């Protein structure tokens, strides 16, 4: 079940994320596996002088420095999480485009699922209440105000009856 959820989430990550990149020819690592790791990491790191761009997208000099730094760490034998630790220690949480769950961001991660669940529960409660209430208020649905009532009377007196509405389709 958990695995299915992860696959689903990944499916959409792949769908929505577009491979956009600003990597320069001279930055690319010789080992394609390491380069691929560097690229994956770059997508989750923010170019701090840009507006909402990852260092993989950005043409800014700072982004280039960070890309080179990531590759340097990978070449030195760091794991992915060590690289991220290194960058966070240096630049703070701001560098991560996907915030880690902590005291300050727990609400950010919880709000979307809570909204869905809350909406679902509200709908369930509502439909149960509606079903119990039954058809009692159906009568009052299309009631006219007294003034309209009066005008309708007047019109009905003057004209042959008009269709109240088009037939429902």
């Amino acid at each position, binding site marked *: 079940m958990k695995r299915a959820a992860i*696959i*689903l*989430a*990944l*499916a*959409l*990550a*792949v*769908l*929505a*994320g*577009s*491979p*956009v*990149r*600003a*990597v*320069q*020819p*001279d930055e690319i690592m010789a080992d394609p596996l390491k380069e691929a790791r560097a690229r994956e990491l770059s*997508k*989750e790191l923010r170019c701090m002088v840009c*507006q909402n*761009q*990852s260092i993989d*997208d950005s*043409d800014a000099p700072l982004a280039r420095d960070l890309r080179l730094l990531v590759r340097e760490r990978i070449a030195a034998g760091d794991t992915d999480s060590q690289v991220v630790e290194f960058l966070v220690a240096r630049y*703070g*949480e*701001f*560098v*991560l*485009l*996907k*915030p880690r769950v902590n005291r*300050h*961001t727990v*609400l*950010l*991660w919880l*709000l*979307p699922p809570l*909204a*869905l669940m809350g*909406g*679902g529960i509200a*709908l369930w409660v509502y439909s149960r209440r*509606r*079903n119990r209430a039954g058809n009692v208020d159906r009568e*009052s*649905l299309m009631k006219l*105000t007294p*003034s309209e009532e009066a005008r309708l009377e*007047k019109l009905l007196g*003057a004209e042959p009856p008009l*269709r*109240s*509405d088009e037939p*429902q*389709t």
Partner: protein
Amino acid sequence: MIAEAGHYALVLALGLALIQSVVPIAGARRGDVALMEMACSTALAQLLFVGASFVLLTALHVTSDFSVINVFENSHSAKPLIYKVTGVWGNHEGSMLLWVAILALFGALVAAFGNNLPMSLRAHVLAVQAWIASAFYLFILLTSNPFARIAQPPIEGRDLNPILQDIGLAVHPPMLYLGYVGFSISFSFAVAALLEGRIDAAWARWVRPWTLMAWIFLTLGIAMGSYWAYYELGWGGWWFWDPVENASLMPWLAGTALLHSALVMEKRNALKVWTILLSILTFSLSLLGTFLVRSGVLTSVHAFATDPARGVFILLILCVFIGGSLSLFALRAPQLKQGGLFAPISREGALVLNNLFLTTACATVFVGTLYPLGLEVLTGDKISVGAPFFNLTFGPLFVPLLLAVPFGPMLAWKRGDLLAAAQRLTAAGIAALVALAVTWAWTRGGPVLAPLAIALAVFVIAGALSDLAERTALFRIPLSLSLRRARGLPRSAWGTAFAHAGLGVALIGIACEATWNSEYIATMKPDQTASVAGYELKLEGLTQRQGPNYRETVAQFSVSRDGEKLPAMLPSKRSFTTRGMSTTEAALLTRGASQLYLSLGDASADGGIAVRIYHKPLVLLIWWGPVLMAFGGLLSLSDRRLRVGAPKPARAARRLQAAE
């Protein structure tokens, strides 16, 4: 003289709006027909004056009158004429003027074509429109006057940001604003209904075409913005989850939900309170989008705090309109009677499910966009919320939604039969499985998720086609009879099928572009060749060219595939002297729905130039999808039942009323 006339016209429009804010409501309270009718005249006159103001600002830009600050800061005498015109809304002041001009246009449309509306409803709607208009006229006149002069006029202007000197971005803002501001109509109708304390199916029948129209423009506007980013920003990305993009996505999601809930209200007289709330929320999100983009709060909370005049004013407008309308809603909504019971498994039920997922998706974007701002204000902590967050939270919401899309139109109103709907979707299901098997076999060993996404997309498209086949009894009765049935189908049924199929088409494009994109990044010298996805590209040479207000380096690439010669590709890098900025003009070679994308990087010292070459399979489907959706919307809009609106008897009654 022209600038002063434009300014004066705007002040007169404000005066008219203030009158329109009060008089029609007083008329409706007293039952005074003349006072209510006045709203129509003022709405039309407003359009005249704001239109004049806008035309005059355009004239200032076209004639390069640099004694006006707005023209000086955003124009240049050497700029091509088309960008002199589009530069009018390529800046803060001008785009706000465009905003109110479109608002006045919509107000005038209600005034001109609202003859079959109940008179007091129309009076209320136009009054609410005038409240919005007054707020924005005041905003422009007090904080963002586009007609302000400079005492010592400079000889030359500072030119428009070069990145905006592009036809895609010339058309994008008006489209987007037609969408944003179009939702003001449903907002005004909602507030008018709450003020009157009455709402019925005729209300929904009136609101739906306006919402649909706004939605069509917003869909096209967003798609166009995305395509512009794709070819102009030079790295081939098409959606960045940037706050500015999110600002336009939120009203779109809410507006799509509104479109569907208004359908339930029109057909079954149910979900009234929810529809009203969505109308308010959709326009509130449009206002929020305007605030986010216009106040500068996104670049930095501090930038906002140091120059707060504009930001605070828009924040005030935001609070008054959103807070006011929601309070009114809380006060009045309980009095609105609910109608139309339905079982959970029914067309209504499916549309409610659609609303649940769309609003949750909207809430997710909302939280992701505003959370960093809120956190920084409250704790001083700076965090980033970017694409990886949205892909992980927004994406999963769309899977169940897309799975449910084909079922909706197959279910009956009131009480549906899920099993029967599933049976009618058998063919679509088989098509999806075949698509899954074929893509899986074709790309064996490749990514697992893309074939699944394509299968889902095929299910959505085939489901939309199945609905049409079902309604025309295709293959079950002779073909000629089916064709006659197809002609007799309401246009809205065709519209639904096109719009839903558009979703699937876009999804295929997204999956293919994300998964099977090939790239080549290298420094190339003349006569070197590169090969990407079976295409052979040869750099023939580099030349310098002088444009009207820029210099550019153009690279000539000859392209061939399997020995067949294809049109040459000419990517370039432009540098704009006045602003000292440069832009990359990517070269695109379209083959079917796929594109070869070529953009230039920096030149190296030894005469080479960095190039990025991408092959993007089926990438164009990403934008054909929204175009299909908008076309579906247009078909639905042309449906007789919507055009007729509240039907003829109402008009007959009005004629009588005049005689009363």
